[in-house]
């Protein structure tokens, strides 16, 4: 009986701690959503109000007055394109690292080293490169100058590729080589083996890498802030636009932040099953 009580207390303590940690994570989101429905006079009062008359005025201001859906569209185009490029280049690179051991591990480590410095360290070279490329005919044609989507697509691809390669290498390493050998003996070319055997088996890993890359692209602020002005600005820069000289419009900021969070939240909830499967895919090695 005493042992059962002790076990119950341990479980209660464990779940209590989990709830506290999750509360810390979820509370800012809860507060953001709550603020987005508050009228201006209830936003910054002390003590904070949990009971108020909700309104959609903040959303109206963000969507109609500030054209926030334009930022959503930009972010969607840039993030999805960048994620597709990362997945294509990353999966091919990761496969070559996993199967052919390209560079004896040195190249793989060198790729990771690009993640070791902060983004701010390379923002000036990126700015100068895209400014100069944007002045050329090719740059104008491809849209890779300053304040153009191409600049952000390339930047995000460059910055997310090392992470994607490192994540995918472990997934490819877990696929038995014998399956590929069998497919080769059946007469499939190397590329067909890749397309018909390896990629379908690594699909959970590719899915989870895609989800993470998309989240990173969607939430990125620094590159978007420095490399864009108006035409190619993303949601994070759009939220920042509510920080005016007259003051910070907290209600519309919360509404804009809620709008920018919702697509990712729905997407991640829809992909949740694949993400869990992908994250546990490489967990057990025989």
């Amino acid at each position, binding site marked *: 009986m005493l042992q059962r009580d002790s076990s119950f207390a341990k479980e209660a303590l464990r779940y209590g701690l989990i709830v506290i940690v999750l509360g810390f994570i979820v509370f800012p989101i809860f507060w953001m959503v709550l603020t987005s429905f508050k009228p201006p006079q209830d936003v910054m009062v002390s003590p904070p109000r949990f009971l108020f008359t909700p*309104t959609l005025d903040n959303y109206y201001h963000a969507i109609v007055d500030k054209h926030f859906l334009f930022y959503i569209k930009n972010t969607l185009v840039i993030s999805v394109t960048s994620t597709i490029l990362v997945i294509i280049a990353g999966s091919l690179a990761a496969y070559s690292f996993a199967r052919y051991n390209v560079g004896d591990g040195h190249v793989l480590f060198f790729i990771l080293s690009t993640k070791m410095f902060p983004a701010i360290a390379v923002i000036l070279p990126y700015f100068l490169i895209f400014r100069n490329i944007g002045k050329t005919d090719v740059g104008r044609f491809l849209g890779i100058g300053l304040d153009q989507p191409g600049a952000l697509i390339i930047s995000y691809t460059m910055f997310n590729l090392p992470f994607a390669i490192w994540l995918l290498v472990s997934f490819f390493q877990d696929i038995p080589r014998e399956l590929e050998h069998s497919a080769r003996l059946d007469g499939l070319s190397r590329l067909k083996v890749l397309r018909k055997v390896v990629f379908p088996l690594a699909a959970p890993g590719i899915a989870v890498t895609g989800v993470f890359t998309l989240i990173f692209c969607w939430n990125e602020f620094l590159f978007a802030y420095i490399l864009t002005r108006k035409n190619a600005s993303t949601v994070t820069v759009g939220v920042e636009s509510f920080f005016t000289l007259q003051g910070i419009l907290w209600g519309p900021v919360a509404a804009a932040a809620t709008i920018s969070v919702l697509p990712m939240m729905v997407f991640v*909830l829809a992909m949740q099953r694949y993400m869990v499967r992908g994250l546990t895919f490489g967990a057990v090695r025989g």
Partner: protein
Amino acid sequence: MNFSQAWDAGFRAVLIYIGVVFVWLGLIEHRFGDQATSVTVMNIVAAVAAVAFFIRAFRRAKAERLKAEADVRALMEGEI
């Protein structure tokens, strides 16, 4: 229903609550003469929808667990 299932269902229930608030404020509130009544009814509807979702998730999780236990029992009996 284990903790992670309860958390997941609770989170989705909160999203449903927020969704009802959005739809209500955007499409239904202007039909009400009195805003206070509208807010009260909205909160009741949103809470009922969220709780109903949570109960449904709870029942589904319980049914899945019972089915899994029955499957395992049948397998064990088959082996014996």
